[in-house]
């Protein structure tokens, strides 16, 4: 019999293709937007740098050497008298600044004396911003007059430097990256053993009765609970707990990791259980028939075969840790830190984005750059776990 409803088939197929294209387009657009907005700021300085800028006011020591041999490029300005090279540049906010490109090892600028204390030595480093240089009996060189003028002033042998003001630029995300790495490590350290062992209990040991069924339903329901509720749990339970048993005095990284561990548990239990389920019953029988007991069978035969599944769970977990922001704003705080301490508040990369976007005005460019970094981390994680799993399968170990 000939099928006559051709039009509806075409329509249905059309919807299928349309829906797929729209989803791919939406994902593609997000990537495209993030990359075009954020790629300009992506640099090692951003990743390594401090978030908080720091200004220094210092005086210049006496120097014997008064001529350095320097090779400036077209856009940079050499100061042979002090062994410095400067350039005209812009900061993360787009203001024009004078950046230090090179400081000679024996330049007097690498042994500046901090004015606050009068004896602490600080050195000017590449990448720092030169803000102001004051002289005895001469007008001060300022940022607004540009790098060329500042270099010319400094090279003038008549001028005696009285005071130097320079700054370590801020805006870097090193602290947030470190916090994120700590969070991943601490959370997995707590959630993986708990989750995997619980999954073993549910799949291998638990008797099939109402209590097991209820417990399983309960853990599965937790998967759908919004993370802000777990954040509430964190602030009411884990923060006071950590304040009691650790040196912490408020929101802190350990409490954040504990909260994330609770968020991850249902996913890890579920994924591990699925992995245990597909281990052939034959292997369990073979092991038991060889005189191995139940525990040996589970840990020596069944669990090793579930490792790819557990790795997948780990990956999903890491994605969740990196992406979580709502729960962490309470428990970990939203204060961006340069020196991270697990007993103190700090921000993960996702919360860093939140902080940037709630700034006035919102810093979309930097947020996009952080988003690129997050995407990179997730991509690398995904690829490496896939690599490990396929290697295991290739070797016939799973």
């Amino acid at each position, binding site marked *: 019999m000939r099928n006559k409803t051709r039009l509806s088939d075409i329509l249905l197929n059309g919807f299928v293709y349309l829906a797929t294209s729209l989803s791919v387009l939406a994902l593609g657009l997000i990537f495209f937007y993030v990359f075009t907005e954020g790629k300009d700021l992506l640099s090692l300085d951003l990743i390594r740098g401090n978030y908080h800028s720091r200004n220094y006011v210092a005086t210049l020591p006496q120097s014997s050497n008064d001529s350095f041999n320097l090779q400036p490029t077209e856009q940079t300005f050499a100061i042979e008298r002090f062994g410095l090279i400067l350039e005209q540049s812009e900061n993360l906010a787009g203001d024009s600044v004078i950046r230090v490109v090179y400081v000679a090892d024996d330049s007097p600028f690498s042994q500046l004396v901090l004015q606050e204390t009068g004896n602490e030595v600080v050195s000017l480093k590449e990448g720092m911003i030169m803000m102001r240089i004051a002289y005895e009996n001469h007008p001060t060189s300022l940022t607004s007059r540009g790098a060329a003028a500042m270099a010319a002033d400094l090279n003038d042998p008549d001028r005696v430097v009285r005071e130097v003001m320079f700054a370590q630029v801020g805006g870097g995300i090193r602290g947030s990256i470190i916090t994120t790495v700590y969070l991943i490590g601490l959370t997995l350290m707590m959630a993986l053993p708990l989750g995997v062992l619980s999954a073993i209990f549910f799949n291998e040991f638990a008797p*099939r009765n109402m209590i097991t069924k209820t417990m399983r339903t309960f853990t599965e329901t937790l998967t759908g609970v919004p993370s802000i509720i777990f954040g509430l749990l964190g602030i009411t339970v884990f923060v006071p707990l950590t304040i009691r048993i650790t040196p912490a005095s408020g929101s802190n990284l350990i409490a954040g990791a504990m909260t994330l561990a609770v968020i991850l548990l249902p996913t890890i239990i579920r994924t591990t259980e699925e992995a245990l389920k597909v281990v*052939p019953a*034959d*292997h369990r*029988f*073979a*092991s*038991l*028939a*060889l*005189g*191995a*007991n139940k525990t*040996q069978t589970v840990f*020596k*035969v069944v669990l*090793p*075969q579930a490792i790819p599944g557990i790795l997948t769970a780990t990956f999903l977990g890491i994605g969740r840790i990196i992406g979580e922001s709502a729960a962490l704003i309470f428990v970990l705080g939203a204060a961006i830190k340069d020196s991270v301490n697990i007993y103190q508040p700090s921000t993960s990369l996702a919360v860093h984005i939140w902080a940037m976007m709630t700034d006035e005005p919102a810093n979309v460019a930097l947020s996009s750059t952080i988003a690129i970094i997050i995407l990179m981390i997730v991509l690398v994680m995904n690829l490496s776990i896939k690599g490990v799993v396929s290697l295991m399968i290739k*070797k*016939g*170990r*799973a």
Partner: protein
Amino acid sequence: MEPIIKVENLDLYYDKFQALKKISLEIHQNKVTALIGPSGCGKSTFLRCLNRMNDLIEGMRMDGTILFHGEHSESSTYDVIGLRKKVGMVFQRPNPFPMSIFDNVAFGPRQQGEKNKQVLKEIVEKSLKQAALWDEVSDRLSESATKLSGGQQQRLCIARAIAMEPEVILMDEPTSALDPLATQRIEDLIEELKKNYTIIIVTHSMQQAARISDKTAFFLMGEVIEYGSTADIFANPNDKRTEDYITGRFG
């Protein structure tokens, strides 16, 4: 000679279904005993009673006695792990663990606490030689067992069982998943193994039972219809149902 296993009045139930009815059998040392019968007749269930693998099935209930060396191996206080060390098992489908060939064979001894590498090496070599697999795998013991062919995998499973130095080896249709050539090799191996071990084999193939076994038990609907020397059973069966089955009239 005293039988190594003596089963008396064995009844077995899965919930309400009675799978075995009043089974009484004697298994003799260093003989190959074949269990034949149509699907669902209880021969595999019977086999699994002998190393208590049925314990794993929920709702299983057992009455009667199974004497292993004169001891009540069916009693709840009997050392099941110890029983399984002495009564090894080879399954229908080859089921090597996804580990190296060496680790597969060494698995049993290792779980018993054997850690000495030299001892393990000797056990692995001896077991693989006895299972007629050594010549094929001696140069790749560290490779994954899952890369072996089906027949090799099954011989590896036999080697794995042998490594525990059992007295009895139970085989549950060990060749049903193999091609004729691999089947032939396993049959030759069984012939060889019966010098050192007592073998009980469940098989669907009448020819196989006739070729390799010394004694044959014919199961039907959970009962043993006839049990005797293989030659007698195949040449002149006492029971009409046995005759019908072995001449291929049903089953």
